[in-house]
C-alpha cells in the first residue's frame, strides 16, 4: 500500500552539513511515535536548488516547502502537518522583502521560472533507488535506442537537437560524436567529465548526487552511438557523496543488466567505472584529464591531433551534457530545439552565488536574461544594495556590468560581452565589491592551479598577480593598466590550453567595464568600493553617532575612544581596518573612505 504523503528531504552535501541527516532521523522517530509510518514516507533526495535555506523538506502531493529546519521543529511539524493536516506556516519559505510565507513550491518565484531538463528528477526521486528513476521514464531512451535506432540515427538526432557542450566550451555534441563514430580504431571510450573546479560552482555535483542514473543512461546511449565498450566517470575525490551515489547507481544498473554484457538483451556491451581525480583544476581540460586517467602527470598537450585515451578514440562530455541526452531521445530533437535561442538550445544549469538572496542551483531556458536570473529567480541583492556585476564562467570568464543585464543567456552573446557561458558558475556582486580585488582573486586561483607547463601561463599569471596586488596596496603606477592589457593578450596567445588562454579574462573584462576603478586606485590612491585596506580609512560620523559604545566594545584593537552618549573617535594608528565597527554599528555612523 503506497503512502499518502511523501516527505522529500534534501540530502545534498550542503544540506547534510546543515544537519539534514539528523532531521531525517528525528522525522522518522516522530512519525513512528505518532503511528504514521504507513501514511508518511521520508525520502532522501538530491539538491532541491534553494540550498542556502537548507535543510529543506518538500511535502508531496501538496508541494509545501519547509526550510531552515532544526531538530527541535520536527515534533511540532509532524504533529501539526502529518497528524492534524495543518501545515506549519512558521517554517515555510518567505520570499525576500515579503512578510507572509508562500506555502507551495510552485508559487515560489525561485522555482516557478525554472525549466528542468538536466535536473528533471531533483527532489522527486531517491537517487539510491533505480526503480524510482525508471518510474520517471528512466532507461526508456536507452531501450528505444537499443531496440529501434541505428548509431547514426542517434547521432543525427543529437546533432539536430542543437545540444552543445555544457562544460563551457559549447562544442556541438552531435558533431563530436560523429567524428568518433567515423574513427575506425577500436576499442573506443566515453568519459564523463565531472572534474568540477570553478570556485562557487556545484552544478555537476548536484546532478550526480540527485540523479546519477541520468548520467549513466546518457553515457550508455553515447557509447552505443559511437561504438564504445567502456566508460569512465572522472569524479573528484572532494565529492565523496557523489562518488558514493554514482558507485551505487552503477552497481544497481549492472544488477538490472543496464550495464555490462548484452544490455537489455540487445547484444550491446558497455560498462562504466569511476575514476577518482585528486582535485587539480587543470584536469577539467580534456587533454590533461585523459593524461590523468592514463596515469601520467596531468599536463595539457597541443591539439590537434584530437584527444585520445590510450591512443584510441574517446568522447568526453560534461555531466550536464550527458544528463540531457536521454530527454532528447525520449522527447525528440524538434521538441528540444524549440527551447532556447538561435544558436543555443535547451536549458542551462547555473549555481547562483555571491551577493544574492536566493543562492542555489537553477536551471533556466537559454535566452533568459541575466536580469531575470538575478532579480526574478535570484530574488535580487540582499540589504537593498545596488547590483554591480555578475561573473559567469568562473576563473575563465568575465564580469558583466549592470548596463548589460538584459543580455540573453546564450553562448555567443556572453562571449561578445567578454565573458563566457562556462560550466555554470554565476557569482553576483554588489556595490561593495572592488573590481581590482575581484580580478586579483581569480588570477590568484589560476596562478595556483596552473600546471606549469607553459611559461606564459605559469609566469604570466604571477606577473599579472604582482601588478594587481601592487594596485590594491596603493602602489600602482601610470602604465600599469596598459601593461596588464599587453601581458593579458600575450598569455592568451602563447598558452597551450584553455586554462592559460582564458585566465586573463577576468582582468580584461574588469578593465573593459570598470576601468575607472583601476584609474582611481592608481591615480587617486582611492578604492571606490571601500575594500582595499591600504586605500581606505574608517572614521565615525559625529552627527550620526549616538555614543552607544557598541563599536568600542567590539573593536579588537581597542582603537575606539569616547564617553557614553558622546560621539566616538577612531585612533588611526591603532586601526587595522577589520571593519568590525561598521558591521556592528546600528546607526550607519562608521564612514569608510
Amino acid at each position: 500500500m503506497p503512502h499518502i504523503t511523501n516527505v522529500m528531504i534534501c540530502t545534498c552535501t550542503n544540506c547534510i552539513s546543515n544537519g539534514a541527516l539528523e532531521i531525517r532521523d528525528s522525522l522518522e522517530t516522530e512519525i513512528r511515535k505518532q503511528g504514521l509510518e504507513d501514511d508518511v514516507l521520508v525520502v532522501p533526495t538530491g539538491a532541491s536548488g534553494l540550498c542556502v535555506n537548507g535543510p529543506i523538506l518538500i511535502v508531496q502531493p501538496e508541494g509545501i516547502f519547509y526550510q531552515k529546519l532544526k531538530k527541535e521543529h520536527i515534533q511540532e511539524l509532524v504533529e501539526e502537518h502529518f497528524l492534524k493536516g495543518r501545515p506549519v506556516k512558521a517554517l515555510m519559505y518567505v520570499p525576500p522583502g515579503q512578510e507572509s510565507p508562500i506555502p507551495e513550491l510552485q508559487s515560489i518565484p525561485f522555482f516557478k521560472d525554472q525549466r528542468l531538463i538536466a535536473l528533471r528528477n531533483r527532489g522527486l526521486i531517491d537517487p539510491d533507488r533505480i526503480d524510482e528513476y525508471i518510474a520517471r521514464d528512466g532507461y526508456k531512451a536507452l531501450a528505444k535506442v537499443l531496440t529501434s535506432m541505428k548509431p547514426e540515427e542517434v547521432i543525427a538526432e543529437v546533432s539536430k537537437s542543437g545540444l552543445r557542450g555544457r562544460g563551457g566550451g559549447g562544442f556541438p555534441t552531435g558533431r563530436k560524436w560523429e567524428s568518433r563514430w567515423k574513427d575506425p580504431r577500436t576499442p573506443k571510450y566515453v568519459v564523463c567529465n565531472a572534474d568540477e573546479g570553478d570556485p562557487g560552482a556545484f552544478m555537476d555535483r548536484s546532478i550526480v548526487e540527485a540523479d546519477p542514473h541520468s548520467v549513466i543512461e546518457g553515457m550508455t546511449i553515447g557509447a552505443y552511438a559511437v561504438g564504445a565498450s567502456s566508460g569512465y566517470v572522472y569524479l573528484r575525490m572532494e565529492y565523496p557523496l557523489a562518488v558514493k551515489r554514482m558507485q551505487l547507481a552503477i552497481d544497481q544498473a549492472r544488477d538490472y543488466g543496464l550495464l555490462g554484457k548484452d544490455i537489455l538483451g540487445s547484444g550491446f556491451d558497455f560498462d562504466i567505472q569511476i575514476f577518482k581525480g585528486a582535485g587539480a583544476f587543470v584536469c577539467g581540460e580534456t587533454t590533461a584529464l585523459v593524461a590523468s586517467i592514463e596515469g601520467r602527470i596531468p599536463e595539457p598537450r597541443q591539439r590537434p591531433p584530437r584527444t585520445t585515451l590510450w591512443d584510441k578514440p574517446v568522447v568526453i562530455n560534461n555531466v550536464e551534457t550527458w544528463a540531457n541526452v536521454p530527454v532528447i531521445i525520449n522527447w525528440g530533437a524538434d521538441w528540444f530545439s524549440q527551447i532556447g535561442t538561435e544558436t543555443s538550445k535547451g536549458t542551462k544549469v547555473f549555481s547562483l552565488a555571491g551577493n544574492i538572496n536566493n543562492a542555489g542551483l537553477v536551471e533556466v531556458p537559454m535566452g533568459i536574461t541575466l536580469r531575470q536570473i538575478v532579480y526574478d529567480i535570484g530574488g535580487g541583492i540582499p540589504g537593498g544594495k545596488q547590483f554591480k556585476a555578475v561573473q559567469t564562467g568562473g576563473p575563465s570568464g568575465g564580469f558583466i556590468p549592470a548596463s548589460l543585464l538584459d543580455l540573453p543567456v546564450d553562448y555567443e552573446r556572453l562571449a561578445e560581452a567578454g565573458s563566457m557561458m562556462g560550466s555554470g558558475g554565476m557569482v553576483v556582486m554588489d556595490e561593495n565589491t572592488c573590481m581590482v580585488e575581484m580580478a586579483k582573486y581569480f588570477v590568484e586561483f589560476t596562478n595556483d592551479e596552473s600546471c606549469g607547463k607553459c611559461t606564459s601561463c605559469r609566469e604570466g599569471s604571477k606577473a599579472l598577480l604582482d601588478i594587481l596586488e601592487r594596485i590594491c596596496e596603493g602602489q600602482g603606477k601610470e602604465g600599469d593598466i596598459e601593461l596588464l592589457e599587453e601581458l593579458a593578450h600575450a598569455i592568451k596567445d602563447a598558452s597551450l590550453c584553455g586554462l592559460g588562454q582564458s585566465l586573463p579574462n577576468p582582468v580584461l573584462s574588469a578593465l573593459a567595464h570598470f576601468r575607472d576603478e583601476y584609474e582611481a586606485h592608481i591615480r587617486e590612491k582611492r578604492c571606490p568600493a571601500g575594500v582595499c585596506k591600504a586605500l581606505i580609512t574608517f572614521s565615525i560620523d559625529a552627527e550620526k553617532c549616538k555614543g552607544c559604545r557598541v563599536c568600542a566594545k567590539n573593536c579588537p584593537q581597542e582603537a575606539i575612544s569616547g564617553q557614553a552618549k558622546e560621539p566616538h573617535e577612531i585612533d588611526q594608528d591603532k586601526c587595522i581596518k577589520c571593519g568590525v565597527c561598521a558591521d556592528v554599528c546600528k546607526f550607519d555612523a562608521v564612514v569608510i573612505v
Partner: protein
Amino acid sequence: MAKIKPEDLARIGDRIKRTMLLREGSCRLKIIVHMGTCGIAAGARNVMKAFTEEIDKAGVQDVLLTISSCAGLCSREPMVTIEEKDKPGVKYVDLTPDKARKIFSEHVLAGKIVKEYALAAGSERTL
C-alpha cells in the same frame, strides 16, 4: 537480481507509479480527507483507511489520496472533498468507512456523485 528486458521497464515503473504521481502532484482525481482534530476525533482515520484499501483493491494509478485540515464544518466531520480536473470539488459529510467505500465505487470510479452523502459542490470564495 535478474537481468531485465525493455518491456520490464514499464512493469518496474508501474509498481511505484502512484508514489511518483503523488510526488509530481499530478492525477485525474484527488480525494482529500479532512484531518483536523475534529475530523480525527470523529473517525477520519478510519475513513482514510477505507479509501486506501479501496484504491489498492481496484489497482487505480491515477487517483491521489491526501489529507488536509478542518474544512470548517466541524459538526459534520468526518468530511472528504473529491476534486476532479476542471470540475467543482464535491464535499461529503458525516462519513463512515462504509460510506467511503460507496463514494469510491460510485464517484471515484464511475464518476457519479453520491448525492445522499454530499453536502455541496464547489468551494468557498477566497480573497
